[in-house]
């Protein structure tokens, strides 16, 4: 996998990058949150990188494994150049906030809502950060590792003689 985009990123934003690797052929860069929107705008607009498409935005909960509990992972794809890049951001447990990249790619809108819904990661600057997959009455963020697995929050009670398993 060509490391062109990764090299350009390191060249331009060397202080913001925590680490990079390309294990299994996937170019990955772990960056700090402060200049995230600027980095993303650069990756989209720079002619060598040309990442027109955000294919995925997801959260990761590393409770007990890493010191910084949450991560947000961005997968970028360039349609014109056919290369991919993964950007990761590490967030502490007490304040899992990351700037929203909604102005860079519109696709981030619902993806950030999903990360909020399931992980509780806040996206600063998102105009409408509310639940997307679950219902508003749901309490908690179910994909966190400390959400009790067998916990159920039904909206309507079970019929007589039955129970919600």
């Amino acid at each position, binding site marked *: 996998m060509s490391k062109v985009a990764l090299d350009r990123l390191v060249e331009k934003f060397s202080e913001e990058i925590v680490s990079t690797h390309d294990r299994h052929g996937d170019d990955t860069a772990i960056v700090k949150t402060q200049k995230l929107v600027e980095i993303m705008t650069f990756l989209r607009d720079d002619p060598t990188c040309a990442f027109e498409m955000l294919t995925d935005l997801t959260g990761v909960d590393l409770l007990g494994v890493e010191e910084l509990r949450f991560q947000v992972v961005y997968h970028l794809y360039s349609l014109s150049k056919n290369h991919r890049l993964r950007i990761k951001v590490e967030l502490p447990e007490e304040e899992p906030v990351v700037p929203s990249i909604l102005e860079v790619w519109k696709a981030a809108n619902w993806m950030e809502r999903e990360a909020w819904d399931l992980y509780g990661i806040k996206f600063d600057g998102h105009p409408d950060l509310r639940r997307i997959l679950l*219902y508003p009455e749901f309490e908690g963020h*179910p994909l966190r590792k400390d*959400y009790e697995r067998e916990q*159920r*929050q*039904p909206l*309507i009670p079970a*019929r007589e003689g039955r129970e*919600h*398993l």
Partner: protein
Amino acid sequence: MSEENVLGNEAAVTTVEAAEGFFRKLLSRDEVQNTVNWGRKWSFFQYPFVTACCGMEYMATAGPRYDYSRFGAELPRFSPRQADLMMVVGTITHKQAPILRNVYEQMADPKWVVSFGVCASSGGFYRNYATVQGIDTIIPVDVFIPGCPPRPEAVLDAIMMLQDKVSKERRPLLPVVR
């Protein structure tokens, strides 16, 4: 009570007797004779409450090869007011559960529910925070069809089972008659 047979056949000869015979047959408790149940079981108007992949097999059963039109159940009515058989096809989440309950309550009696596929019958392989573990926790179900998705033959078998169930039923014909 039979009088002289002017027509020369052995059927009920007087109009009174014919009428009595008709109503007797209509309301009889005998499963074979009961005309009302016969009518109901051969004319299901389905409400296909399709949410997921089982809908593909539902459509296949509707197609010409497996064809549930043979059972008189062809016409899907997408309004619960006009339907009597609700087929819950696919996964029902807790978010969808109030909607399902609402639609079920809007259907008029007599109504039956078929739980199509394992997700509707028991939650399927989604044993998690989001999925209702079987729709019989929220609405009464008459027939469960296992399968992920069920073969169309299983669906037709279920319709036949439901027909057996309907023919044995005893429901009031009108609220005032009983």
